C-alpha cells in the first residue's frame, strides 16, 4: 500500500513536471508573469496531455509502457532545463491577508470544503458510471495490461475506437506507475482536475475583473452540482441523472481544456502576447485529444484568429503558429485513425442531406436543450440565466472582443451538438437523455467566465473590459488574494 502510494505520488508528479516543462518553454521569457499558484494547475492539465501523447507515440514506436520509459525523459529534460535556465524570478505569489475580508474568507472556506470533499470521496470509492466501464477506464485497463496500443483493439466498434485517448492513457499511466489497475487510485486524476479547473478559472477571470468578483464566481463554479458529479462523485442519484458519480468520464477534462483554450485566446486578443496564443492552441488541441467534440472549438478558434488578424492587422504568422501547434497535438491521432480506417460514429451521417431529412427533430431537440439549460437548476444551477441575463445587460461589450469571440465559441459548440442530434441514428429521445447533460458541462465553465466578466463590467463604476487592468498593461498578480 505504501509502495503504491509512493508510485501514485510519483505518477502525479510526472504530470506536473511534464506540464511545467512545456509551460516553461512556452513562456520562456516569463512574459506572462505567472505565479507558481497559476503554473501548477496549468502544468497539471498540460501534463495529462503531454504524458498521454508521449504514451501514444511510444505505442507507434513499439516502446512498451513502463515507469522508466515514461518518467525518465521528463526528469532528464527537467534537469537540463534547471541547468540551462536562469533562476526563476517570479515563482512566488504576493498575498496580502489584510485585503481579504470576512466575506472572502467565507468564499475560500466554501471552495476548500468542496475540494476536500472531492479528494476524499473520489479516492474512497471505485468507478460506477457506465461510460467509465464501457469506454474510458476500460481502455485505461486495456492499455495498461497490453503495455501499449494494439491495433486489433481498435477494430471493435463497441469500444468506440474513434474516441481520442488523453483520458484513458493518462489513467493508464497511473496504473503503470502503481503496477495495478486500481480504479480508486486512478480516480485521483479527477479531483486534481477539479482543483485545476477552479484555479484556472480564478486566474483567467482575475485578468479581467476584480479579485472579489473572481472569487465569487470561482465559488459558484465549485458548488455547481454537475461539476462535482464529474470531479469527486456523489452517492445516489441527482436530478434526472441515473447516477451521481460520473468520475471516470472525459467531459470534465474537455470542459477544462475548452475553458483554458478560450480564456487564453481571449487574453491574447487583448494584449497580443504570443505565449497566450500558444497556450490557447495547446489547450484547444488537447480538447480535441480528449473528445471529438473538441475539434469544433479548434476549427472555430482558427476562424476567429483569421478574423482577429484581419481586423487588428496582425501578422499571419500567428495563424500559422496556431495551426502548427494544434496540428502537432491532434495530427498523430488523426493520422493513426485514418491509417487504421477507424470510422467515427457519425461518419457518413454528417452532412446537409441527413440533417435536412431529420429537420423535424429540431423542435424536440430545442425543447430538450431549453429544458436542460433552464429547468434543471439542480444540476447546472442558475448558470444559463446568469449567462444570458448579464450578456443582455452588458450587450454593448458582448458585441466587442474578447466577449464576442467567447460567445461565438459557445454558440458554435452548441450548434455542433444540435447537428449531431439532427443526424444521429440513435433514438433521439434516448440520445438526448443519455448525453446532453454532459455536453452542457463542456461549455459551463466558459459560460460562467463570461457571466463573471459581465458582472465585473456591470458593477464597475467607471470601467469595463476595455478599461480594465489588462488594457492598462497592469495584469500582474495583484497584492490581494
Amino acid at each position, binding site marked *: 500500500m505504501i509502495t503504491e502510494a509512493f508510485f501514485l505520488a510519483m505518477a502525479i508528479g510526472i504530470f506536473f513536471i511534464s506540464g511545467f516543462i512545456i509551460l516553461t518553454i512556452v513562456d520562456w521569457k516569463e512574459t506572462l508573469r505567472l505565479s507558481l499558484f497559476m503554473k501548477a494547475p496549468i502544468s497539471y492539465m498540460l501534463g495529462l496531455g503531454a504524458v498521454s501523447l508521449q504514451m501514444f507515440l511510444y505505442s507507434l514506436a513499439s516502446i512498451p509502457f513502463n515507469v522508466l520509459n515514461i518518467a525518465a525523459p521528463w526528469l532528464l529534460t527537467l534537469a537540463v532545463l534547471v541547468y540551462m535556465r536562469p533562476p526563476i524570478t517570479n515563482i512566488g505569489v504576493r498575498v496580502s491577508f489584510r485585503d481579504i475580508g470576512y466575506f472572502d474568507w467565507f468564499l475560500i472556506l466554501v471552495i476548500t470544503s468542496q475540494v476536500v470533499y472531492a479528494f476524499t470521496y473520489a479516492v474512497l470509492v*471505485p468507478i460506477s458510471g457506465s461510460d467509465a466501464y464501457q469506454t474510458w477506464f476500460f481502455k485505461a485497463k486495456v492499455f495498461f495490461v497490453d503495455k501499449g496500443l494494439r491495433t486489433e483493439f481498435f477494430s471493435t466498434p463497441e469500444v468506440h475506437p474513434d474516441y481520442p485517448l488523453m483520458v484513458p492513457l493518462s489513467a493508464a499511466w497511473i496504473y503503470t506507475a502503481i503496477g495495478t489497475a*486500481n480504479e480508486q487510485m486512478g480516480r485521483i486524476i479527477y479531483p486534481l482536475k477539479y482543483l485545476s479547473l477552479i484555479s484556472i478559472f480564478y486566474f483567467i477571470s482575475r485578468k479581467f475583473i476584480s479579485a472579489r468578483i473572481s472569487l465569487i464566481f470561482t465559488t459558484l463554479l465549485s458548488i455547481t452540482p454537475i461539476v462535482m458529479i464529474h470531479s469527486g462523485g456523489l452517492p445516489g442519484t441527482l436530478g434526472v441523472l441515473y447516477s451521481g458519480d460520473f468520475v471516470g468520464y472525459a467531459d470534465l477534462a474537455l470542459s477544462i481544456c475548452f475553458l483554458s483554450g478560450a480564456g487564453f485566446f481571449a487574453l491574447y486578443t487583448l494584449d497580443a502576447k504570443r505565449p497566450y496564443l500558444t497556450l490557447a492552441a495547446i489547450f484547444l488541441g488537447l480538447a480535441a485529444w480528449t473528445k471529438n467534440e473538441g475539434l469544433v472549438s479548434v476549427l472555430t478558434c482558427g476562424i476567429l484568429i483569421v478574423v482577429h488578424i484581419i481586423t487588428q492587422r496582425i501578422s499571419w504568422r500567428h495563424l500559422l503558429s496556431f495551426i502548427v501547434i494544434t496540428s502537432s497535438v491532434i495530427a498523430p491521432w488523426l493520422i493513426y485513425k485514418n491509417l487504421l480506417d477507424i470510422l467515427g460514429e457519425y461518419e457518413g451521417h454528417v452532412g446537409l442531406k441527413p440533417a435536412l431529412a431529420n429537420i423535424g427533430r429540431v423542435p424536440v431537440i430545442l425543447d430538450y436543450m431549453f429544458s436542460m439549460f433552464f429547468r434543471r437548476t439542480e444540476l447546472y444551477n442558475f448558470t444559463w440565466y446568469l449567462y444570458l441575463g448579464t450578456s443582455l445587460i452588458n450587450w454593448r461589450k458582448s458585441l466587442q472582443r474578447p466577449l464576442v469571440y467567447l460567445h461565438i465559441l459557445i454558440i458554435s459548440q452548441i450548434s455542433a451538438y444540435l447537428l449531431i442530434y439532427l443526424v444521429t441514428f440513435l433514438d433521439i429521445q434516448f440520445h438526448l437523455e443519455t448525453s446532453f447533460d454532459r455536453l452542457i458541462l463542456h461549455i459551463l465553465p466558459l459560460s460562467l467566465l463570461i457571466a463573471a466578466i459581465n458582472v465585473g463590467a456591470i458593477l464597475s463604476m467607471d470601467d469595463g473590459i476595455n478599461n480594465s487592468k489588462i488594457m492598462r498593461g497592469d495584469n500582474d498578480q495583484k497584492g490581494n488574494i
Partner: protein
Amino acid sequence: MFLEVVKDWAKSRKEVITGIILLMLWLTDSRGMFKAEIKAIEALPLLLSSSSSYDEKKLFFDGPVYLFALEAQHRTPEDSKIYLFNPYTSGASYIYLKTRYYLYPRKLHNAGGEINIDELLKYNYLIFVVPIETGSEAVEPVYRIPFLKRVYQNLDENGLIGIYRVDKGVGGR
C-alpha cells in the same frame, strides 16, 4: 483622494451584495448536492474502516456481477476465449460490459440469450450469471450441450453463476 476611497468603498459594497445574492441562489439550488455530500461524509467511517476492503466496495457498487467476474477470473487463464451466455435480457448489456471490464485480457464474446454451437466451439469457456428472479430454467440450454464440462457452479441469494469448459474432444465437431 477622498472620492477614490468613497468609490472603492461603494464598489466593494456592491460586489459583496452581488456575491451574497448569487451565493444564496447557488447554495439553495445545490442543496441536493450538499445532502448527497453529507450522506457521503456519514459513510466515511465505513469507507475508511479496515473491514471495508476494495473487494467489498466493488461488491457494493457492482453487486453479484463482481463476484461472478472474480470467480471467472480465478478459474480461467488470461489467454482464454470466453463465451458469455447472457439470457438475463433486461440487464444483459450491463452484465456484458462489467464482465468484459473485469475479465480483460481474456477475450469475451457476448452471445446474448441463445447459444450458437458452431460459434461456441471457437471458445474455451462458457460462462453465465443469472439473477435469482430470472430463474435457473434460463440456463437449461447449457445443460443439454454434451461437450461442456462444469468447472464451477453456484446458486445462492445473488443468483446462479456457471463456468463451463468447452471440451472440444467430447462430442465436439
